[in-house]
């Protein structure tokens, strides 16, 4: 079979463009997915004022979530994994942040109900993001683990990239902190939507994290 | 017709006084042939001979002349021998009229056709005169016998009729008595 030169030329150009486009697109997506969200000044110990009761019998796990963030679905999924391994060894809370102007059904989402369905997990509503601000969480999916003494042993995301399910460093660290007495405070990047509205400055600051 | 070196006179006497008065008709279109037959018949002792060279007149002549024997040629202009043969047979009816066909046509089929049409005898030209005369004699003899028989039958019939009427008369007379 013989084809016209023109056709082959066009195809070659198209092919090259294709590859270039794919490379660019792939890179952009990759970049987006692997860019972590911002992290505020995380409390290194249990804050004095909190709606979340402090426990001294078991470590406490806190996850801050945006009820509409699709990426947090993976984080909730990973939480379910963790809870499966560490049921009874931890007091777990998922706090859904509710902005001040949000309607009554703001956090009535499938994400909230799937979190509530995890055994051993208590779902709370964080009115106006006060608790998030108290604990220093700014990105949906941010998870904190405090030991019995109220000392922070883990802070960060439990997914490897945006909305990416599967084993990851955060999950391993959480499980280690819950099951063994972790010596070191672990820290991982958080992938997800912002919990509260940020200005462009805040974005830049967070990126450097 | 084989060469016969033996004395001609000796074998030449076929005629019988009985037939001298028999009437012969010759029908032939060829004058030489007619002349030959006339001479032959003359020598043969026949005195009542009539010849016809125009076949159209043949029937008329025969009806008037009432021949005892006919010598007939077949191939003739105007009316051919077969037609004459059939007419003669039709005219003769029950009576025995000998007709000798004399023709130069040697085809078997002609011979059979002629015999079927009523010829009594058939002779091929050229013919042997003695043979013709002998055959004529034979046929005339037969005719004579036929005529005689007819006469006798007629005579017997008369006698029977006479006798019958006598008997009838006798019967009526007896009845009267």
């Amino acid at each position, binding site marked *: 079979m013989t*084809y016209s030169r023109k056709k082959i030329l066009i195809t070659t150009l198209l092919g090259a463009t294709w590859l270039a486009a794919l490379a660019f697109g792939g890179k952009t997506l990759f970049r987006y997915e692997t860019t972590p969200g911002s992290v505020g000044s995380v409390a290194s110990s249990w804050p004095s004022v909190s709606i979340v009761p402090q426990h001294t019998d078991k470590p406490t796990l806190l996850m801050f979530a*945006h009820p*509409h963030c699709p990426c947090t679905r993976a984080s909730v999924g990973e939480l379910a994994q963790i809870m499966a391994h560490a049921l009874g060894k931890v007091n777990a809370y998922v706090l859904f942040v509710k902005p001040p102007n949000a309607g009554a059904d703001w956090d009535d989402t499938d994400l909230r109900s799937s979190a509530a369905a995890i055994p051993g997990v208590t779902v709370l509503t964080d009115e106006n993001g006060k608790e998030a601000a108290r604990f220093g969480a700014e990105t949906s999916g941010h998870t904190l683990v405090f030991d019995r003494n109220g000392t922070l042993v883990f802070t960060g995301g439990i997914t490897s990239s945006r909305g990416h399910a599967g084993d990851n460093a955060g999950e391993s660290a959480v499980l280690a902190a819950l099951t063994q007495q972790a010596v070191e405070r672990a820290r991982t990047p958080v992938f997800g939507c912002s919990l509260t509205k940020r200005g462009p400055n805040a974005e830049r600051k967070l990126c450097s994290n | 017709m084989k060469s016969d070196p033996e004395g001609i006179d000796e074998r030449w006497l076929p005629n019988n006084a009985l037939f001298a008065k028999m009437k012969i008709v010759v029908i032939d279109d*060829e004058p030489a042939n007619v002349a030959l037959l006339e001479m032959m018949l003359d020598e043969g002792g026949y005195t009542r001979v009539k010849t016809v060279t125009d076949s159209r007149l043949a029937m008329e002549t025969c009806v008037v002349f009432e021949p005892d024997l006919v010598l007939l040629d077949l191939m003739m202009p105007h009316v051919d021998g077969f037609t004459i043969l059939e007419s003669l047979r039709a005219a003769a009816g029950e009576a025995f009229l000998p007709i000798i066909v004399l023709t130069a046509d040697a085809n078997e089929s002609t011979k059979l056709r002629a015999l079927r049409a009523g010829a009594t005898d058939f002779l091929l030209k050229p013919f042997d005169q003695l043979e013709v005369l002998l055959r004529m004699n034979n046929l005339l003899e037969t005719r004579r016998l036929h005529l005689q028989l007819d006469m006798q039958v007629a005579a017997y019939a008369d006698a029977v009729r006479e006798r019958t009427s006598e008997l009838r008369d006798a019967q009526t007379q007896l009845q009267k008595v």
Partner: protein
Amino acid sequence: MLELTGPIPEASSARAEELFQEHRHQIFCATDKLFERLMLFQWVACIVIALVVSPRTWDGEASQVHIHVWSALLIGGAISLFPVWMTRAFPGAVATRYVIGVAQMLMSALLIGLTGGRIETHFHVFGSLVVLSFYRDWRVLVPATIVVALDHFLRGIYLPYSVYGVLSASPWRSIEHAGWVVFENVFLVISCFRSIREMRFIANRTAALEASDQKSRQLFDDAPIGMAVVAIDNEKFKQVNARFSEMVGYSADELMERTPVELTHPDDLAATQRSVKAMLEGTERCSVEKRYQRKNGDTLWADRTACVIRDKDGTPRDFLIMVEDITERKRAEAALRDAKKEADRANHAKSEFLSRMSHELRTPLNAILGFGQLLERQKPTPQQRARVEHIMSAGRHLLNLINEVLDISRIEAGHLQLSVEPVSITEVLEEALSLMRPLAADRSMKLCVDGKIDNDLHLLADRQRLKQVLLNLLTNAVKYTPVGGRVTVSVEHSDSTKTRLIVTDTGSGIAKEKLARLFTPFDRLDVEPSGVEGTGLGLALCQRLMQAMGGDIGVHSVIGEGTAFWIDLPPVESPLKALPKALETATDDASRPEGGRILYIEDNLSNLTLVEQMLAEQPQVELLTAMQGSLGLDLARKHRPDLILLDLHLPDLPGHEVLARLRADSLTCQIPVVVISADATTRQIQRLLAAGARNYLTKPLDIGQFFRVIDETMHGADRQVEAAVA
């Protein structure tokens, strides 16, 4: 179905390869099409998934369209559109499938990305590999696998935790990931090779079938006779070969639109349709000689043979027609017929001419011989007598000539009727000799028979004609032998199939070079100076007569010693010899004649004796015999027998004539006549019965039949008389 296992059949490789490539290309194109649709579908699916799973991205309570949606739309589009272009621009090309392979795996990557790395979405990778194997080209799996591997590799480098979930991936995990893909690939490659093998198998089979098909097709196309296949349902031509087209003058394409009926000469339609009907009713094969009308209007005579072609169920589907051009033969036949007609006409004209000639010659000859006879009787002087002798002798000579010419022409025209039957040699010879004796005596010659001839010796011959031949030979011998010479007749048995009669003279002999001319008509071998008269037809006639009787004639001569003419005829057992035995078997026969007078007109003494002896034991039957027709007629008239047995061949009159005269005479017309003949054909018998014969018998006489026929005929006559009396 084809058996797809076992060795690949050997085949004409070029064609098989061609078929194989064709098949592959078909598969490539079909699979291209499949992927074209799949690509577009996947694109749409990506968008839908993105919209469902992550429609928006959130920033507090503000939200915007999620980047996944844009990715699905743009990257998904990018991935799928180029392959779609390729399938359109290069269907079935290698590059197309490679691009598709790459694109499909990229699509997997995109999907996995969009679904957040769901482990289930990884099935798309394995499914895609399987679908790629639809190409049956293992090489397509290579770029696809490379893309998967690269994806993992790159992610492993830059984002190990996104691939393996841990920061530092352990090597076995990457091996396992690759392992599963390789695991699948191994089986897909095996499957590809199998498919290829099957395809080769099919290609070779097909090529082989094609080759054989080609061969029979060629036989059909190149056959030297016209061949055509005609569909039974619409009666149109389905297939014709070159010869057929050439014969009818229409091209193959023109014929496809026509039916054989349209090509058939109108006069032959009925016959053609009859044969078609016969075949539809079960006759397997039908041949017809018919005419076709060529395109240019000419007529083609053809010998058309057709048969029915049935399908597997035995239902008639087509006619196979084979046509041979017999126009030339028909033309030759017609020419032959015309020639024969012409020959017959000429022959008839010749006979007619001879018959007329004979008539025209006989008429004046009659006058010549007639007046000669008159002159002979007028007591001529010796001088006149000698002159008349000359006239008579010349006239007779002329008559003989005419008769012989007629005889020869009759034999040549096949009109001569022969009655071949057992004839006693002694009888015929005695008759001939007695006729010759006077002539021999004239020339002081001895005429004798050499040795004694067995009385029982019979030959198969026509009695009259045999006598004619013997007379001719004897006459010649006597005429051409000087005075005082000697003529001898002898008999020789050369073998069981022929008996030879030899007439030897002591003449001057004939030179060898002249012998061959002896039997040529009118060639008198320059004997004119000798003064011996002859027609020059005698021997020619003898030869023809002998041949007509199934015998032969020849001559042997030595100059100065004499000449010997011989004739050969087949010997046969004497009918008298067989009589006693036959009578014995017939004695039981109840139907013997009751009594009466029988007249037997027959010239053959053997037959007369036979009948005499047969009736000897029947004293109540009186037998009259006549050896000549005229004598028979006289006896019939004189004695009025109850039955006349009539032989058809008599010396003086033919049997038909005797019969005709018997019927014509009022004295004899009532007498039943049984005709006896040796050579009666059915036609003859019918003619005789029509002419008035009551019955007929064939020679040699069967005694039982003889008595039966006599009885039937006589009793039939009685019954008729009774009926007449009543």
